[in-house]
């Protein structure tokens, strides 16, 4: 009798599991969208293509969808995630190796739902959790721009390197069930049109949060910590909300200048992955940048607590660091040349007052090199001369004596990681 009851329970449980699995399959299943002949360039109007180009610059598409030194939009760039390495795809209109056979419906579905033409779920390394906010007109403009680029024949050279079960694309539907909220963008009536336009651009095509918002263990952005700072390619993406560690508070004008030029005299230069973002933004209409600046400035707001500065007399004496700073850094950073030709006063740099040593260490070792074909801040790197000990002394001196902040922990880790990246 008892075994009978147990068996009945097991059978019922199996039914429930089966039904759940069936339900998940139904939920996750996406049908392929039939291929089309690549649309003729004449089928798009010039205004749409131009708007698409601006949106693509806002989205910094080219950075991920081009391999270093490779063809523009030809894909093949490795994107390292905590879950494994993903290689970006060719998004030129090549019919065989790109997306030439994608209809506008297929393109829009990829942007809105993260599903490719064949019906496979895409990894959220492609930030469709942001692109889902893009409206129909902008999506059509992006399609027009992409489909009128030079087709590049570039097959995948690497398969994605993800461990089981993450290599099963079907399961991404489960991730979406948990974390993905479909768009398009809904106007927030408590804010004006400029703010809404900025929010639409920053959170949609601009996908600022992809780097500037921290992620949870499953790689999803933590919505409650929007813009609270994150990681990008071995760099720290600063908090751009009320948690900002910038000594000088940001306002909309500052942000507008920074985004359009890549530097601001009281805040410093865009470095790391932000350098390429800013280089792209320089080709975006001012109205778009102003809207983004308005929105981000509103999110940053007035700081909850002013940045606490330690009294300078309490800073530790660090003769080695001070001497290295004076001999190596001061001629530019304490000079009289203004930005962008001289170095930023380091007390103003968020790399110095920020959360961790990552960016300061990265900049000292690698220097600043504007992305190819662009102008921007320059600085020689010191990886070949500074020993780890000298570097740590220098970082400690800059942090405490110029940033007037308590010492960082984990500086050695930042040094080790930066060195290993430089060796690659």
């Amino acid at each position, binding site marked *: 009798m008892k075994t009978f009851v147990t068996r009945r329970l097991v059978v019922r449980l199996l039914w429930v599991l089966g039904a759940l699995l069936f339900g998940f399959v139904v939920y996750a299943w996406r049908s392929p969208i039939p291929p089309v002949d690549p649309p003729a360039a004449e089928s798009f109007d010039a205004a749409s293509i131009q708007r698409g180009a601006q949106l693509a610059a806002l989205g910094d598409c080219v950075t991920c969808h081009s391999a270093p*030194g490779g063809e523009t939009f030809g894909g093949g760039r490795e994107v390292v995630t905590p879950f494994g390495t993903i290689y970006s795809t060719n998004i030129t209109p090549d019919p065989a190796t790109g997306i030439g056979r994608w209809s506008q419906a297929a393109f829009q579905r990829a942007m809105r739902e993260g599903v490719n033409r064949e019906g496979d779920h895409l990894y959220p390394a492609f930030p469709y959790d942001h692109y889902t906010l893009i409206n129909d007109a902008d999506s059509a403009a992006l399609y027009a721009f992409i489909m009128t680029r030079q087709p590049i024949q570039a097959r995948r050279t690497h398969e994605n390197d993800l461990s089981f079960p993450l290599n099963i694309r079907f399961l991404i539907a489960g991730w979406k069930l948990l974390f993905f909220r479909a768009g398009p963008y809904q106007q927030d009536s408590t804010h004006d049109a400029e703010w809404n336009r900025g929010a639409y651009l920053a959170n949609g095509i601009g996908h600022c949060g992809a780097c500037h918002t921290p992620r949870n263990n499953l790689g999803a952005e933590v919505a409650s910590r929007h813009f609270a700072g994150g990681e990008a390619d071995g760099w720290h993406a600063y908090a751009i909300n009320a948690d900002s560690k910038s000594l000088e508070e940001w306002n909309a004008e500052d942000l507008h200048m920074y985004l359009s030029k890549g530097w601001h005299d009281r805040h410093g230069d865009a470095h790391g992955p932000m350098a390429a973002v800013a280089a792209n933004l320089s080709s975006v209409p001012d109205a778009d940048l102003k809207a983004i600046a308005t929105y981000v400035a509103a999110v940053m707001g007035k700081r909850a607590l002013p940045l606490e500065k330690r009294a300078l007399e309490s800073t530790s004496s660090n003769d080695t660091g001070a001497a290295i700073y*004076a*001999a*190596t850094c001061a001629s*530019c950073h304490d000079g009289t040349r203004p930005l962008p030709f001289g170095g930023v006063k380091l007390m103003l740099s968020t790399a110095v007052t920020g959360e961790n040593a990552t960016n300061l260490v990265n900049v000292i070792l690698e*220097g600043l090199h504007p992305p190819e074909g662009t102008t921007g801040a*320059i600085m*020689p790197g010191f990886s*070949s*001369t500074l020993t780890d000990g000298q570097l740590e002394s220098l970082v400690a001196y800059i942090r405490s004596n110029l940033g007037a902040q308590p010492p960082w922990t984990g500086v050695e880790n930042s040094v080790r990681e930066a060195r290993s990246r430089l060796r690659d």
Partner: protein
Amino acid sequence: MIELRVNGQSHNVSADPDTPLLYVLRDELQLNAAKFGCGLGQCGSCTVLVDGAPTLSCVTPIMLLEGRQITTVEGLGTREEPGPMQRAFIEEQSAQCGYCIPGMMMRAQALLQRNPRATDAEIRAYLEPNLCRCGTHMRILRAVKRAASMMTGPDASPTTRTPVPASTEVGTSEIDSDAQRDRRHSEKRERPER
């Protein structure tokens, strides 16, 4: 006094510890290969090696260099017995005004010491920080390939001094096909008109 090891020799240097290495090399040690170009670490003409890594000596104070191995062009060979990098640059006649050449040689030396079989693309990418305003890039690239082939030749070593006949073709790479093209051009020009 700071002790510097330059080209295998020890020197006690009287300059202040915050003096850039370049000034010490040129003014105190009379090693004049490395050049002052921009003074901002942006042009590469002051490039020397520190423990084998290319280093911009104009922005490097000597206080950072105690106990490190510094190498300049003078350390690659002598006028009588030039090293492979020097000979390759002479044989390819890579210098025009010559100001960038010592920096180019040192950066190329750093690459070939680590990877004597560097590809054309790797050579180009590695030399990218060093500027040449005369436009002798193709000759510089050919010289680096030539140096690489001397270093990887039968008597392989970065300091190989086996003479290589000037006419020797170096591989069949993109850079060399440029070399061949140039040579064809010059042959054409030298041929008397009929």
